[in-house]
C-alpha cells in the first residue's frame, strides 16, 4: 500500500496556471475526494499523479518514493477515466487484462485475475464483447475493472460515475465504498457531485482555480465550510444566505432578521459591526408557534418534496426568500402565515467582502500551505 504526497505542484498551460503551488498528502489506505467545479484542476492533478503529464514545478511522492520523473508505466497506479478510455479494438476481457499483460503474467494468472474482478463488478457475461457493444454502465464497470485488476496500491478515479445514468450512479455510490475498502488501496477520487464526495471520501479536498480551498472530513466541510462558496456547493437544498450586520446587546452578539433579534454564539464577537452574510442550512430552520422565543414571522409560498425531505419556500416580511426543510412525514405547514425559528448554534457567519467564514479555527486559506 502506498501513501501519496504532492509538494508545491505548479502546472501551467501557456499563460494559464492550472495548479498553483498545490500541496496535498493522502495517507495510506485513505480515500481522498477531490471536489470542485470543472476547470478547478482536479483532472490535471490526477494525470500528474498518474504520470501522463509532467508538473512544471514540485514533487510527487508515491509510497515515499519520488516519482516526479518516473514514466507512467513504472508508477504502479490504477486509473479509471471519466470517459472510460476503453481500447475500442479490444474485447472487454483484453481491456481488463492490459495491466496484467504488462507484467508478463502467465495466461492462467491473467484469466483468473480478469474473471475474478469481472465477477466482482458483475460483468462476467460481457467479457467477450468489444466496447461499442457494451452499455454505458458496462463500459464504466469495465474501466473500473481495468483499474482494479492489477491491485494497484494507489487508485485514481476520475469522476467514473459522471457519464452513467442516475440509477446506476446511485447503485455504484453504495457499492464503491465497500469495493474500495476491500481493496485497502489508497484512493484519489475526483467528482463534481457533492453527495458522491460525502459518501466516498474519508476526507474531501475542495478545489477551485487550481487551489485547494478547504481540506477536511465530509462532516467538517459541511458544518464548517471555509467560505460561502463551499457552503453553497455542499448541501441540497442549498444553504440560505442573508446579508446581516451583527450587533451587540446585553445578552451578547445578535443579528436582526425580520426585526427579530437572533442571538449567536459568543465566538462571533469579532463580527460585530461588520457587513456579514449569515448562512442558515434549511434543516437548521424549523416551524414553530407564533409565541415561541425567537420566532420569525414568514409567509409560506410553496412546498416541494425532495428525496427523503420536504422543502418549503417561505418569504420573510422583508421579502427575502428562505428554504426550510424537514424530514418527510414530519407535520407540515399550511400555506399562509407561519413562524420559523433558527437553531443559532449551527448558523454560519461569513465576511461579506472576502466570503471567508468568521470565528472558526478552521478558517485557514490553504493557498500556499501544507494541508495535512
Amino acid at each position, binding site marked *: 500500500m502506498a501513501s501519496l504526497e504532492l509538494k508545491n505542484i505548479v502546472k501551467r498551460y501557456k499563460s494559464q496556471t492550472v495548479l498553483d503551488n498545490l500541496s496535498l498528502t493522502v495517507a495510506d489506505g485513505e480515500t481522498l475526494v477531490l471536489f470542485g467545479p470543472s476547470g478547478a484542476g482536479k483532472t490535471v492533478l490526477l494525470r500528474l499523479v498518474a504520470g*501522463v503529464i509532467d508538473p512544471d514545478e514540485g514533487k510527487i511522492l508515491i509510497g515515499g518514493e519520488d516519482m516526479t520523473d518516473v514514466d507512467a*508505466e513504472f508508477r504502479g497506479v490504477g486509473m479509471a*477515466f471519466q*470517459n472510460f*478510455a*476503453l481500447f*475500442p479494438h479490444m474485447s472487454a476481457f483484453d481491456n481488463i487484462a492490459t495491466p496484467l499483460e504488462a507484467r508478463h503474467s502467465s495466461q492462467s494468472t491473467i484469466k483468473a485475475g480478469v474473471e475474478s474482478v469481472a465477477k466482482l463488478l458483475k460483468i462476467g457475461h460481457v467479457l467477450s464483447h468489444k466496447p461499442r457493444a457494451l452499455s454505458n454502465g458496462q463500459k464504466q464497470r469495465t474501466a473500473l475493472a481495468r483499474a482494479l485488476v492489477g491491485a494497484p496500491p494507489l487508485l485514481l478515479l476520475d469522476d467514473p460515475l459522471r457519464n452513467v445514468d442516475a440509477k446506476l450512479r446511485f447503485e455504484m455510490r453504495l457499492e464503491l465504498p465497500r469495493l474500495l475498502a476491500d481493496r485497502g488501496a489508497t484512493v484519489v477520487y475526483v467528482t463534481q457531485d457533492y453527495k458522491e464526495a460525502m459518501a466516498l471520501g474519508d476526507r474531501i479536498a475542495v478545489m477551485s482555480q487550481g487551489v485547494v480551498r478547504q481540506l477536511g472530513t465530509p462532516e467538517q466541510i459541511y458544518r464548517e465550510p471555509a467560505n460561502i462558496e463551499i457552503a453553497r456547493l455542499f448541501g441540497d437544498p442549498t444553504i440560505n444566505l442573508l446579508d446581516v450586520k451583527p450587533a451587540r446587546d446585553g445578552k451578547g452578539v445578535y443579528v436582526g432578521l425580520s426585526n427579530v433579534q437572533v442571538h449567536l454564539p459568543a465566538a462571533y464577537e469579532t463580527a460585530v459591526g461588520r457587513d456579514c452574510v449569515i448562512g442558515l442550512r434549511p434543516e437548521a430552520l424549523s416551524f414553530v408557534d407564533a409565541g415561541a422565543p425567537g420566532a420569525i414571522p414568514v409567509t409560506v409560498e410553496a412546498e416541494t418534496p425532495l428525496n427523503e425531505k420536504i422543502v418549503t419556500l417561505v418569504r420573510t416580511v422583508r421579502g427575502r426568500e428562505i428554504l426550510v426543510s424537514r424530514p418527510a412525514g414530519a407535520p407540515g405547514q399550511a400555506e399562509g402565515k407561519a413562524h420559523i425559528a433558527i437553531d443559532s448554534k449551527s448558523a454560519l457567519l461569513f465576511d461579506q467582502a472576502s466570503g471567508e467564514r468568521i470565528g472558526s479555527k478552521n478558517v485557514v486559506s490553504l493557498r500556499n500551505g501544507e494541508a495535512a
Partner: protein
Amino acid sequence: MEHTSLLERILRGVALTLVVIFFMFPIVWIFMMSFQTNETILRIPPQLVFEPTLANYTALITGKLTTMSGTLDIAFMRNLWNSVFLSTTSVAVALLLGVPAAYAFARHKFRGSEDIAFTLLSFRFAPALLVLLPLTLYFQKLGLANTYIGLIWVYQLICLPLILWIVRGYFEDIPADIEYAYRIAGHSWFATFRKIALPLAGPGIAAAGLLAFIFAWNNFVFALVLASADKQPVTVGALAFITSSGIQYGQISAAIVLSITPTLALALYAQRYLVEGLSLGAVKG
C-alpha cells in the same frame, strides 16, 4: 426539391450525360484502341465495332514488336516494373519515416514541431524543378544520378508531406486518454504506439499509403529529370515509347492502359478516403 419540373429533370439528365461522356470517353476510347490492330485504328471514320485482338499486349509483354521493317525491342515492361518498384519502395520509406513523425507531431507539441510540419507541407506546393535542377548536379557528384536510391529519396517530396499530414490527423483523432490508459496499465510508449495508436490509425495509414502510391506512380517530372531509360517509370517511358515506335498506336494505347490501370483500380478501392486525402484532411468525405 420535390417540385422539379419535367423540363428541369430532362435538362439535368442531358447535362449529366454530357459530363459522363466528356470524362469517360477518353478512357473508354484508349481502352478500345488497345485491342485494335493498327489497320483498324487508322481507318476513317473511326470504328466502334471491331474484332478485338490481344496482339498489342503480347507485343508489350514479350518485349518484341514485329513490324514490316523488322523486329523492335520494347522496354515497356521494364518501365512498368520501375513504376511498381519506385512507387512501392517510396511509399514504404515514407511510411517508415512519416508515421513516427506524424505521431510525434500529433501527440507531443514540442518546440519547432509546427515549423517542421509546415516546412514539409510547403514542399507540396513549391515548384518541383526548383529543387530538382540543382539536385541533378548534386546527384552527379554524389553518384546518385540515375539510381533507384536517388529517385526514391526525391519521391519523398511527394509521399512524405502527404503521409505526414493525413496520418497526423488520424492520430489526433484518437483520444489521448486511451493512450494514457495503456501507459498507466504499465506499457511503454513503444508498446502503446504499436498496440494502440497504430491499430486505431490503421485505416488512415493505409489510405495515406495508397494515395501516396498513386501520386508517386503518376509523377512525371522527377524521373524525367533524374533518370535515364533503364530507371524510368511508365509516365516517362510511355512518352519515350511514343517517339521511338512512331506509328505503333495500338501498342501505345495498350501501354497507356497498362500504365493507368493500377492507379485507377487503387483509387476505386480507396475512394472512401480520397476526398480527405486529396485535401490533406481539410474536407471530410
